[in-house]
């Protein structure tokens, strides 16, 4: 049996109440000494059987009354089969409502979502006019795809999370998901959709698949009803161009005797521009250091755009006097940055523009980019969070006495004086690597090993653990390296054991993606030496600033000594180092090569981090690169690149759970979360208690998918900034920002034409309706209402109960004289 309010089904236990009262009464007989016993016994002998029968009937009737009453309150929905035996059926309208972001497309008379609701409301009203009884169930896509927190946090890809959602959706109770569950429609259906209309669309890219599966399970359990499934959507190409899985789901519904109606809410193809992404370059994020942000913009329309202007704003959270701004996008102090003007943007074209922003103080700052109004508002703004520190620490390992290589790197990365690069350099020997705990190494944003002949086994383990957890290490040969040194280092860095010092990672394979073979010198007197000694950069973020320039900044760099390499392989036969390229099968990416095609720098992903290998020492005896200005650029970019893999995400998905841990010694455990509750600039705050995480750490968790307001089922699934306000014990309030951006895929508004849609769904017997065309009468209307039958049954049972109670003399007479023995005058 299935009920609209499943929890009320526990009320069926009340059926036992009359029996319980009867038993209690039997135990609670009052004692009465009685003189006229002979008459009482006579009455008892005469009426014994009738009394028992009437009492049993009365008891059963009362139990039945309670059962029917509870069934009515819980809204029994699966009893239609029983009613069908009586020749009655119920028309059940299942409305699957697409409330994904694209349904928020604005029209002159509202949004597509509102148009869809009006259309369905009209359809239901027409059905009512045809007579019979009707029930309606409304399921929104986003609620059917209720995202489990554990899934949403781990996934950054919306399609991936949808797949996971689908797998979980069946286990979710339909009563909790459906906005309206098997409710009888007695009058106009407008009121039914009021709350749903108020809540509007969400900024999610959700599939309808969980909703189809949910209806399928409901139909399987239901019976005796005439189901009509309305699919109210905008039928975009991104989902409906090749709807194989959708077709299979709809086929399942049709197999369950459901009539399927497609209610198309979309209008003609319209123009839309989507801000695809906004991310900082992989560089150091420090206070006072310029940050380059890359903004990607896509023209989703069919016509080219000219002179498209994008406004950029930096929200500065440096001030400690900030207050929560409930009616603005962010509580930070807004600083308008120079607008980006895109002269020409062709249909379907995506362009990326960079712009620079500087925040003088450390903290969690926000940068946003926004477009003017177009068809879809949600994808017109994008933002990212820049969590800036005062400076990031760089560890340089140099075992040489004079530490020449370290000096070159330090001079490039942290020259000192008024120039601020955001780096703070610390030079140590390889013994430091050996003796340090993992926590110590994790304090460094990146590590450069520039001069060492040998690494201790423990030092290698520490490096493996550091890289696997997201750290970045750059390794260069030492100045005095011989072939023996190269072989030794190769051996040491090629250890592929998975045992970490702290046991926190389990990444197999060698840290070093290649084998150093021998020290090779390019003779300068050869004719081709000039070419062979030159540096050829590849397409890599580190060398990106040096690319695509008329005159290469690396044109004067000459490398006369390097270490030849071979690719690592399981059988140790290896391949010639010459064959290593960007398409190499080994897990390393070529960053730069020499003119003789020998690799100069290789980028190896190991775990979550990167291990960059240089083949030439940072020393003037090996190359003139340390003395070339381009060396400064490359070292800065390399340090920033290596540090970027441990940086926190600059944005997240709308449905992602916010998790933030902080020191219990620095902050109070009470946090305040500020989030958006709608498309308008209306935000509200919620007190979020922090939970202990151990090791004097506290963690705050906030799930936007959970109902913020249970009564209105209001969620915070909107692209917006989310601010976590913590109370510091020493500095007042501190804000940590999180940015949820709209899924870019939802900006693709190309619709599927009706003919294509119907053709792709053949041989399904679906009925297509334009949302504006709801004049046709509903052909599937029939029958009567189940609730009315229950009400009638209840009234009948109450009458029977009264009659039996009357017959059982449970009603006292109105006047004594009418029933008592009269005394003769």
């Amino acid at each position, binding site marked *: 049996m299935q009920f609209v309010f499943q929890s009320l089904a526990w009320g069926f236990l009340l059926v036992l109440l009359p029996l319980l009262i009867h038993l209690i*009464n*039997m135990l*609670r*007989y*009052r*004692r*009465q*000494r*009685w*003189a*006229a*016993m*002979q*008459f*009482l*016994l*006579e*009455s*008892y002998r*005469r*009426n014994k059987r009738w*009394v028992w029968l*009437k*009492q049993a009937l009365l008891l059963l009737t009362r139990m039945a009354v309670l059962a029917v009453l509870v069934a009515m309150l819980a809204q029994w929905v699966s009893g239609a089969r029983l009613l069908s035996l009586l020749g009655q059926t119920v028309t059940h309208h299942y409305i699957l409502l697409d409330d994904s972001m694209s349904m928020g497309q604005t029209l002159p008379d509202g949004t597509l979502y509102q148009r869809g609701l009006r259309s369905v409301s009209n359809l239901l009203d027409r059905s009512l006019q045809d007579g019979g009884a009707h029930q309606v169930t409304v399921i929104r896509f986003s609620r059917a795809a209720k995202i489990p927190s554990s899934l949403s946090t781990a996934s950054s890809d919306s399609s991936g999370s949808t797949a996971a959602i689908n797998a979980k959706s069946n286990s979710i109770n339909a009563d909790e998901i459906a906005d309206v569950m098997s409710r009888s429609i007695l009058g106009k259906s407008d009121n039914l959709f009021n709350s749903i209309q108020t809540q509007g669309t969400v900024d999610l890219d959700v599939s309808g698949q969980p909703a189809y599966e949910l209806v399928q399970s409901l139909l399987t359990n239901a019976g005796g009803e005439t189901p009509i499934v309305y699919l109210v959507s905008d039928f975009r190409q991104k989902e409906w161009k090749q709807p194989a899985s959708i077709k299979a789901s709809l086929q399942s519904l049709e197999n369950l005797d459901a009539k399927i109606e497609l209610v198309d809410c979309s209008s003609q193809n319209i123009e839309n521009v989507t801000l695809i992404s906004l991310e900082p370059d992989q560089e150091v994020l420090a206070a006072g250091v310029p940050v380059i942000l890359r903004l990607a913009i896509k023209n989703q329309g069919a016509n080219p755009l000219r002179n498209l202007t994008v406004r950029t704003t930096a929200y500065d959270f440096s001030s400690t006097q900030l207050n929560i701004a409930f009616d603005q996008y962010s509580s930070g102090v807004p600083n308008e940055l120079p607008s980006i003007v895109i002269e020409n943007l062709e249909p379907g074209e995506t362009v990326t523009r960079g712009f620079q922003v500087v925040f003088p103080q450390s903290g969690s700052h926000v940068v946003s980019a926004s477009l003017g109004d177009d068809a879809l508002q949600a994808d017109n703004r994008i933002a990212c969070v820049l969590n800036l520190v005062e400076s990031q620490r760089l560890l340089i390992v140099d075992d040489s006495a004079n530490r020449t290589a370290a000096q070159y790197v330090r001079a490039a990365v942290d020259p000192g004086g008024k120039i601020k690069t955001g780096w703070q350099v610390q030079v140590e020997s390889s013994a430091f690597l050996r003796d340090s705990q993992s926590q110590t190494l994790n304090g460094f944003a990146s590590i450069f090993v520039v001069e060492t002949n040998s690494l201790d086994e423990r030092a290698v383990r520490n490096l493996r653990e550091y890289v696997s957890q997201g750290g970045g290490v750059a390794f260069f040969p030492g100045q005095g390296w011989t072939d023996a040194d190269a072989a030794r280092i190769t051996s040491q860095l090629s250890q592929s054991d998975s045992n970490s010092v702290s046991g926190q990672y389990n990444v197999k394979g060698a840290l070093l993606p290649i084998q150093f073979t021998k020290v090779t010198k390019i003779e300068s007197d050869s004719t081709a030496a000039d070419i062979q000694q030159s540096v050829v950069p590849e397409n890599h973020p580190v060398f990106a600033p040096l690319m695509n320039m008329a005159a290469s900044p690396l044109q004067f760099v000459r490398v006369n000594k390097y270490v030849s390499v071979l690719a690592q392989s399981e059988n140790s036969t290896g391949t010639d180092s010459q064959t290593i390229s960007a398409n190499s099968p080994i897990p390393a990416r070529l960053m730069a090569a020499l003119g003789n095609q020998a690799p100069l720098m290789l980028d190896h992903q190991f775990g979550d981090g990167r291990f960059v290998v240089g083949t030439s020492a940072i020393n003037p005896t090996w190359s003139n690169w340390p003395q070339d200005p381009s060396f400064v650029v490359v070292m800065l970019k390399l340090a920033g690149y290596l540090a970027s893999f441990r940086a926190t995400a600059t944005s997240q998905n709308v449905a992602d759970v916010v998790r933030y841990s902080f020191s219990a010694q620095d902050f109070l455990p009470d946090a305040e979360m500020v989030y958006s509750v709608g498309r308008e600039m209306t935000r509200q705050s919620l007190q979020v208690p922090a939970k202990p995480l151990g090791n004097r750490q506290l963690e705050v968790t906030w799930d936007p998918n959970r109902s913020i307001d249970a009564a209105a089922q209001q969620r915070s699934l909107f692209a917006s900034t989310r601010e976590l306000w913590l109370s510091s014990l020493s500095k007042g309030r501190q804000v940590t920002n999180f940015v949820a951006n709209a899924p870019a895929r939802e900006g693709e508004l190309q619709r599927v034409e009706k003919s294509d849609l119907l053709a792709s769904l053949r041989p399904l017997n679906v009925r297509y309706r334009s949302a504006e065309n709801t004049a046709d009468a509903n052909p599937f209307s029939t029958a009567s209402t189940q609730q009315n039958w229950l009400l009638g049954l209840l009234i009948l049972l109450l009458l029977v109960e009264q009659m039996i109670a009357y017959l*059982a*003399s*449970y009603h*006292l007479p109105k006047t*004594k004289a009418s*029933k*008592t*023995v009269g*005394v*003769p005058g």
Partner: protein
Amino acid sequence: MPASKKYLLPEAIAAIGSLELRAQRIVNGFLSGMHRSPYFGQSVEFVQHREYVAGDDLRHIDWKVWGRQDRLYIKQYEEDTNLRCSILLDASSSMEYGRGPLSKYDYAATVAACLAYLALKQQDAVGLSVFDDRVRIRLPWRSGRKQAQSIYESLVQQKLTDRTNLAQVFKDVQQSFPKRGLVVLLTDFLGSDAQSLRGLASLRRAGHDCIVFHIMDDDELDFPFNDPTRFEGIEFSGSLACNPRALREGYLESVQKFLETTRRSCAAYEVDYHLVRTSHPVEATLTAFLAARMAHLRKR
């Protein structure tokens, strides 16, 4: 108030003080009073002449008739005698029932005390018999204040224990009531059958004027119980746990049938029958009873 005066309610006595208790028929009496005697003797009111037979008192011969007609006749006078009133009070255990201020026995004893007081005040002789399955207490007929005191004390001291056996009681009473008089029976008739009531007929045949006060509690007549109740018999052994509302109708039918049978039997035996509710005020009951008796007497 002393215990012996417990049943002599002042308001009840005040209400009937102005009324005269008169016997309906001529009873034998040994004291001159207001009651007509069935015997002829010395009196002021002449009734008739009767021819002399051997053995008649010579003093009653009317010599004037003998002088005129030479025949012996004796004069017969109507003689007023005092009333010999016998009160029969049921003291079986069923009489102890009562949820109101007075149990059935309390009520019956009060009525008995009032009647005794009234009769003694008129110089009539009053006797009392208290019975259950047999006569337990018997006070012979006497008049005077001492008799009243004895009656009151007997009423108070009686314990209600056994069942009723009216047939046996009537047999005892017949043997010990040689002279005609007024017999007042106060009982609930519970435990009695129709055969038992034949004793009343015997008393009537012996010339007694019989009055029956059928004392019933309101509960027994109305059966007002609603909650599940275990009824435990007072005079009858056994119990019955039931829902009273379910048995109420049948019970009331049985009671009605019982009352009707009793009333019909009393009417057949020319017994003055009065069904009395214990909730009915005693003085009202007595007033109504005596007024009815007076009216009936005047008709005659």
